[in-house]
């Protein structure tokens, strides 16, 4: 792997991103649904090392936003560095209700309450965009991985059956694949949603998304895998195994699957970003995970209005986050394919 730094770098970067997203509870300073209604659409806070007198501080600090003018709704915010708060590592936050502790949690960084830190600014309801980005990643990246896993498993199974057994099984599966490839996802989701109960919890909505994306997406990998299986089953060692009386399951498991694993892995690396984008699209349109739970799609939904698009650039955060992730996935797939081709040649 070291011989291929591009593969190594993209794999490590992707692993790190997923690690941070999985550990959102620790890395995010706030609960993603916590509203700060007095700080709606506040821009990202600056991290300062120098105070107003120009003195350097080893411990960085942030200055809270205050409304620019005394108005019902502030048109903008200004920094009030008289109330600067130093940044701290490993901060414990406690949520109280009726004088009792409801929830306590540790966070990698933060500032002492009642001060707040909004690294990426806030949204319409004053929710911390950085925390929402990390928690939203759990939904969007998770949906991409799981849906890719589902569609790839189905594709692998059906592709192997179609390619290995051929005849009527091949016809049925491949015509079915063509049908699924022609299905418009969004309308399918609309239709499925119409049959389901009125409200779905976050978990059910998430499962529904994965199911629709995963179940409709198997056709393309199945066709590719079928092609590989068709070629593999003519190989000498497969014919020999069959001649020795090996069962079909055994042949597929021991001889065919290793053949298609490289293709399957590359397909996975290509499908994941595609499915992340599908989840983002669905949530953007209000068909995925609903408020107040974050997803990168529903976080982008407010950009449908001109005023947000024009004046609140930080609301693009989740859209911008997709770019390096997609590039990493494609770079990973590309390097993987290159490496696997080399392996094939060396066999």
């Amino acid at each position, binding site marked *: 792997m070291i011989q291929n730094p591009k593969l190594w770098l993209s794999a490590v970067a992707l692993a790190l991103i997923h690690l941070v997203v999985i550990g959102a509870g620790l890395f995010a300073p706030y609960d993603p*649904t916590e*509203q700060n*209604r007095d700080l*709606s659409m506040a821009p990202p806070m600056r991290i300062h090392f120098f105070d107003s007198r120009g003195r350097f501080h080893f411990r960085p600090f942030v200055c809270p936003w205050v409304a620019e003018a005394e*108005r*019902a*709704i502030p*048109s903008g915010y200004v920094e009030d560095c008289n109330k600067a708060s130093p940044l701290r590592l490993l901060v414990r936050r406690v949520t109280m*209700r009726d004088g009792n502790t*409801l929830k306590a949690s540790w966070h990698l960084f933060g500032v002492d309450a009642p001060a707040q830190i909004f690294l990426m600014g806030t949204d*319409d*309801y*004053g929710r911390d965009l950085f925390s929402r980005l990390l928690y939203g990643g759990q939904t969007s990246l998770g949906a991409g991985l799981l849906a890719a896993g589902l569609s790839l498993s189905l594709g692998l199974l059906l592709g192997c059956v179609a390619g290995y057994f051929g005849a009527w099984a091949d016809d049925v599966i491949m015509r079915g694949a063509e049908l699924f490839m022609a299905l418009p996802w969004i309308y399918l989701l*609309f239709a499925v949603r*119409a049959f389901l*109960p*009125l*409200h*779905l*919890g976050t978990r059910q909505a998430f499962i529904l998304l994965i199911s629709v994306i995963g179940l409709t997406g198997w056709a393309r990998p199945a066709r590719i895998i079928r092609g590989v299986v068709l070629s593999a089953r003519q190989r000498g060692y497969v014919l020999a195994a069959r001649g020795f009386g090996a069962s079909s399951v055994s042949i597929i498991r021991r001889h065919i699957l290793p053949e298609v694993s490289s293709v399957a892995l590359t397909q996975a690396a290509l499908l994941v970003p595609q499915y992340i984008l599908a989840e983002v699209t669905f949530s953007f*349109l*209000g*068909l995925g995970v*609903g*408020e*107040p739970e974050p997803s990168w799609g529903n976080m982008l*939904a*407010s950009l*449908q*209005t*001109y*005023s*947000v698009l*024009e*004046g609140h650039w930080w609301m693009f955060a989740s859209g911008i986050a997709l770019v390096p992730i997609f590039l990493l996935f494609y770079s990973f797939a590309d390097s993987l394919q290159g490496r696997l081709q080399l392996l094939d040649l060396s066999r």
Partner: protein
Amino acid sequence: MIAGEQYSGGKLEWGDMNYRLRYGLCVLILSSLPSLAPAAPTPQASKTDEDILITVGDTGRRGGRLLASLHSDPKTLNPVTAVDFPSKQVIGLLFADLIHIDAYTQRTEPALAKSWKASASGRHYTLELRHGVRFSDGHPFDADDVVFSFKVYQDEKLHSPQRDLLEVAGKPIQVRKTGPYQVDFDLPQPYAAAERLFDSVRILPRHLLERAYAEGKISQVWATTSDPSQIAGLGPFRLKQCVPGQQIVLERNPFYWKADPSGIRLPYLDEIGFLIVPTEDAEVIRFQAGDVDLISRIGADNYATLEQAQRARDYQLYDAGPGLEYNFLFFNLNDLSSKQLPDIARKQEWFRRVEFRQAVSAAIDRDSIVRLVYRGRATPLWDQVTPGNKLWINAAIPQPARSLARAADLLRTAGFTRRGDGVLVDGRGQPVEFSILTNPSNAQRTKIATIVQDDLAQLGMQVHIVPLEFQAVMARIFGSYDYETSVLGLVGGDADPNPEINVWTSGGATHVWALSETHPVPEWQTEIDRLMQAQTAMLDYPKRKQAYDRVQELVAQFDPVICLVSPHVLVAAKNTVGGFKPAVMGDYLLWNADQLFRTDIAGRR
């Protein structure tokens, strides 16, 4: 005209004395000015045999062109069949009515009828029409046009949207010509503010449409592609050009029957154009680019965007204050006995508890909705009448501040408790969990739902937001009743309580929360039904006001719906637009299109 004075004095001779005085003076002035009363009958000049209506206020400058925008093409220019907003907006400029509701004062004023009288019984009205008025093609207008117009609107085969308005107690109003310029109207029963019925009933040209009507083709005439010379009305403008998907141009009607105090015949403008701009955002961009001169119905977010750039640009923004629109949260209180919706029926046990609804109302932070959803450009509401409705608002309705403690007390009274994990449960231990139906295309209502969700979570209620496409939302609310709660907005008609009957009485077509009422009907609902019906026949304004005040009290007290906010009417116009006076009802901007002018032209008489 102050409706209160009129009614309280028991005077049944209606009409605006100020107007008549002004009119008398104007005829005197006009007839003494030879330049304004020439012998030759040209449309541009006033004639002594013409009943010209003299407007009040500032005078403007003649000439010039204004550009406004529409979100889509008008479907038709035929007032008999028009239902969509763009059609109504354009038709409002091409045609005129007998008695008009002034969008600014919200009171009736003479239009094509220069005065009117009601009988002591309140069932007979006699309208005196203006003499010498001509349609935009130069053809004279008289009582035959009025009788013809009402005959067409009341024809049940045509399904005109005005037909329902022209029925009182389910029976049509009878219309009779009693002179060339006099028409009598007989109502089946006394009807409060009957003169408001004449607003928006556009008078049609009999000479152009009689044949089409006789042949049963009247609903097919006057498409937007029709020859402009074949369309004639009594409004300030007439059609010049219509390019579908691009623009509609209206030109000045030289025969219009209004003049300003200095004797200049209105309208001031030579032309008004409408560009077809499909979305509000695109409209704002075109306005900023200087392509259109005025825009109405701006959302609060876009208003804020325009506000930021205002200093550098040559336009003015106007916050006309709360309009007649009220947004509310409502629970499904329909009778579900004939539907297979057991889960919703179970939750209705909560929704029907007055204390439950009151607790929800007490827990909602209306001020946050105003700040976060409307950026301060809205007014919180506790009943259905907005401060924009100057004549009917009940100022005594309490406006309690948000109180979670009061909400919790109310819930305790109703038998709800909180579990150790903070979840609110009913008497049977069932968690209080329900959904709010919204349509994502309306970002503001979705935001309201999100705030309500967070507010109610603080009471331990688990609220889900269900975004569905608008038609699907409507189908559930009006058809299947398969929903738990929803957020909707309604606009209070012409600011009078009468159009609200459909909303507040049992069995009303827009009684959205209980289209199918359960029996027995709650006492407070019975009282609302009785009061709303009774006020329609009260001719005395204070008594009507008292009745409607009580309806507002009942709504605020029993929360059949939880009124939340009334968005402000936000409009913008270039600095070069004069006579600009945004109103909170009707067409916010162009209701006085005949008095709009350009300040950047020299002007001519």
